């Protein structure tokens, strides 16, 4: 008997650990992708023994589309629990405020919330234990595991009428997750500075952008483009993010074609491609349109500066909007625009959801319904997404996120069997695109400021490194 118990305990412990181990690795703030996890298959089945019995009922239950907010289920009385990673919103009372507004519509549904600091790992543990309440932000689980843990909202095609990114967490053709906000890649700018400089139309090409920066320099006291050079991650991490669909208009370029391209950094001559992207930084530096002493920039210090109109623009993801708005008295001056590269007359932006709401498949029928109502209300009515400055999730809710005339695209994943090529090329060429290659982007600023190298020298150097790596790794050149 004793032996059996010990064995069972050991097994349980091993399963828990195998789950935690999967959670590590990726950065905070990035969206967990369903493909990330593979080893947890053995451990995952154990905690959801009751799933089979309820599954038939669940499928017959309410769907996201069928709920009419404020009309249906007014008499439903229950308590649901929501675990999330936004501890800052838990602390500053935003969460409580949202819930009290929700209770204005549904007074009988009590919502308890819990903010978890180390969400990436803890959420996986909680998920496997089954003891987490009714709604959670879906952590990094395998797409195949979604039905064992979560309730589907409806089919992907049906959900796509209501929300963006319905296919982020899909299994079969069912949608299991709805983002609480979206992230988009573009440029952060100060509307007032642009207006003061006389820039009325947002720049759409590199030339227009440089002209706008020049106008800011000539007509205002603001720093046209603040590079955040010293922080490091603000160079590689942010500029590399535009490689791919934004600069080429081709969704397959970044993850499928880049490694096979002979001259990825050649001048297309029409202000597109990787060349044009990094040329913006070189030109801006050469023309003195960046901060005076770039070696002593301060990340925390730049937030109030752009808020107060001392900075014209910064190259940062949309996740930064909320931080910049919160850093001073002029939140309304902070704007976000698509990256100024136009491919064949079209501007592109990549976007994807942040964490997504998932509803516990093992919750009681009442709680599932209540949770569905709560999620729908959060997405459609709460305005939380907009408050965070996020790219809109709901297709009907009001949003201040304006990306006029921009085509939203997503870089598609690498071909099967080629998933590791990009990593290997990054390491071999030492350019590390989207993988901490800050030094190479800093080099552009240094070269432009000191005149040590021309931009074409740098691009040639990169091409050489890229080609040498292709040869070393035996990667065929196809494009």
């Amino acid at each position, binding site marked *: 008997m004793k032996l059996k118990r010990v064995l069972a305990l050991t097994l349980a412990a091993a399963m828990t650990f195998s789950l935690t181990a999967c959670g590590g690795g990726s950065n905070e703030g990035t969206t967990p992708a369903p493909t990330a996890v593979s080893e947890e298959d053995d451990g995952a089945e154990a905690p959801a023994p009751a799933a089979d019995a309820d599954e038939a009922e669940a499928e017959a239950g309410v769907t996201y589309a069928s709920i009419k907010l404020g009309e249906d289920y007014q008499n439903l009385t229950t308590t649901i629990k929501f675990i999330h990673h936004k501890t800052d919103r838990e602390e500053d009372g935003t969460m409580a405020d949202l819930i009290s507004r929700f209770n204005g519509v549904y007074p009988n549904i009590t919502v308890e919330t819990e903010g978890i600091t180390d969400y990436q790992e803890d959420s996986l543990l909680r998920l496997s234990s089954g003891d987490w309440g009714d709604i959670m932000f879906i952590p990094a689980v395998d797409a195949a595991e979604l039905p064992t843990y979560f309730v589907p909202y409806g089919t992907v095609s049906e959900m796509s009428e209501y929300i963006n990114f319905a296919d982020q967490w899909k299994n079969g053709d069912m949608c299991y997750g709805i983002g609480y906000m979206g992230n988009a890649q573009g440029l952060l700018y100060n509307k007032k500075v642009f207006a003061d400089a006389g820039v009325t139309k947002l720049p759409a090409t590199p030339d227009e952008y440089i002209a706008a920066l020049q106008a800011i320099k000539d007509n205002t006291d603001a720093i046209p483009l603040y590079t955040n*050079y010293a922080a490091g991650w603000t160079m590689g991490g942010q500029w590399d993010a535009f490689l791919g669909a934004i600069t080429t208009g081709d969704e397959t370029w970044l993850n499928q074609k880049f490694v096979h391209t002979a001259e990825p950094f050649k001048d297309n001559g029409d202000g597109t491609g990787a060349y044009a992207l990094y040329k913006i930084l070189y030109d801006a530096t050469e023309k003195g349109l960046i901060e005076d*002493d770039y*070696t*002593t920039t301060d990340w925390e210090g730049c937030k109030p500066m752009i808020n107060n109109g001392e900075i014209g623009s910064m190259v940062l993801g949309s996740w930064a909007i909320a931080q910049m708005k919160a850093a001073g008295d002029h939140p309304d001056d902070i704007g976000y625009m698509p990256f100024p590269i136009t491919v064949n007359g079209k501007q592109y932006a990549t976007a994807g959801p942040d964490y997504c709401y998932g509803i516990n498949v093992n919750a009681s029928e009442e709680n599932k319904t209540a949770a569905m109502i709560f999620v729908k209300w959060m997405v459609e009515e709460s305005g939380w997404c907009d408050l965070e400055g996020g790219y809109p999730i709901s297709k009907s809710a009001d949003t201040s996120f304006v990306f006029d005339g921009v085509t939203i695209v997503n870089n598609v994943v690498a071909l099967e069997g080629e998933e590791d090529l990009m990593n290997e090329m990054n390491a071999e060429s*030492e350019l590390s695109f989207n993988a901490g290659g*800050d030094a190479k982007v800093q080099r552009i600023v*240094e070269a432009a400021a*000191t005149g040590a190298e021309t931009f074409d020298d740098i691009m040639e150097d990169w091409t050489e490194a890229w080609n040498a790596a292709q040869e070393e790794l035996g990667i065929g050149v196809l494009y």
Partner: protein
Amino acid sequence: MVTQVNTAGNRKGFLQWAKSRKGQQVIIIIAFMIIPLALLFTFTYLPFGEMVGYSFYKMKYVGKRTFVGWKNYASVFSRKDCFGALKLSLYYMGGSIVQLVLALYLATILSFKVKGGNIFKGFMFFPFLINGIAIGFIFKFFYTRGFVFDTVLQWCGFQLDNLPYWLKDQRINNISLVGTSVWRYFGQNMVLFIGAIMSVDAELYEAAMLDGANRYQQFRYIILPSIKTIVTLNVILSITGSLSAFEPPYVITSGANGTGTYFVVMNEIAHTQQKVGLASAMAVVLLLIIFAATILQKLFFKYAFRNAEDEDFNATKRRDKQLAKYAARKAGR
């Protein structure tokens, strides 16, 4: 049967030996040594051996490894950034000379009776107590355009327009960084020097003064020879330290803008580019360079302090001459 008896006899002999005074000594020595030796082996030599092994592979932290022989070492020597980074060590070596001279000078002054001497010692030793990362952040603000350093210089009458950008200008940014490391370590060197000078017998100064020696001569012929061990040690530590300079460039400029020292480059290669084999080879090469530098310095000091023990080199010569003359006269008589 016979063997049984034999082993029994052996066992008895061993037990007896173990109980004897000599046996107890040996057992205690082994028992006491085994823990530190095991720790030393597990945490120093084993990982080092592993690293030497890595340097022959092309590998990342995870994934498969391929044996590449001496290729990593070849690229350490052929790459521009590896040995180019060692040139920066010259800045740090220059800095360490300044640092040692300054420390020795102040230590000599402070080891005589000076008003408020202990306060000065405290102030100058204080930077050594601050964490290196914190120092990095302090100096980042210190050197920022228009911040602390520029403000102080403006009080002294400098115009901001005439002042250089301390971290941006590639001609001087390494000197700025070396400055922080001098600021941090010279106090520690000074305290070591003071400790050594304290151990010099005070009667020697008195005797020297009676003979009419001034302060410089006291320093040259009494203090310096007496503390040569500690001087040698400090020089060796500073030079090897400047070969492996890391904290100031890593924290203040993150190795950008031409300030990437050998260690910073190594860190970038190991962690960003994930070329663990190459980085290991770099570490082994640096170790060999440090060995060579240390041995050369040892030899140099052996030569430099050869005659410094009691008096200067010329005095020995003169005395030898006189002795020879005396001997010749004696022989002539």
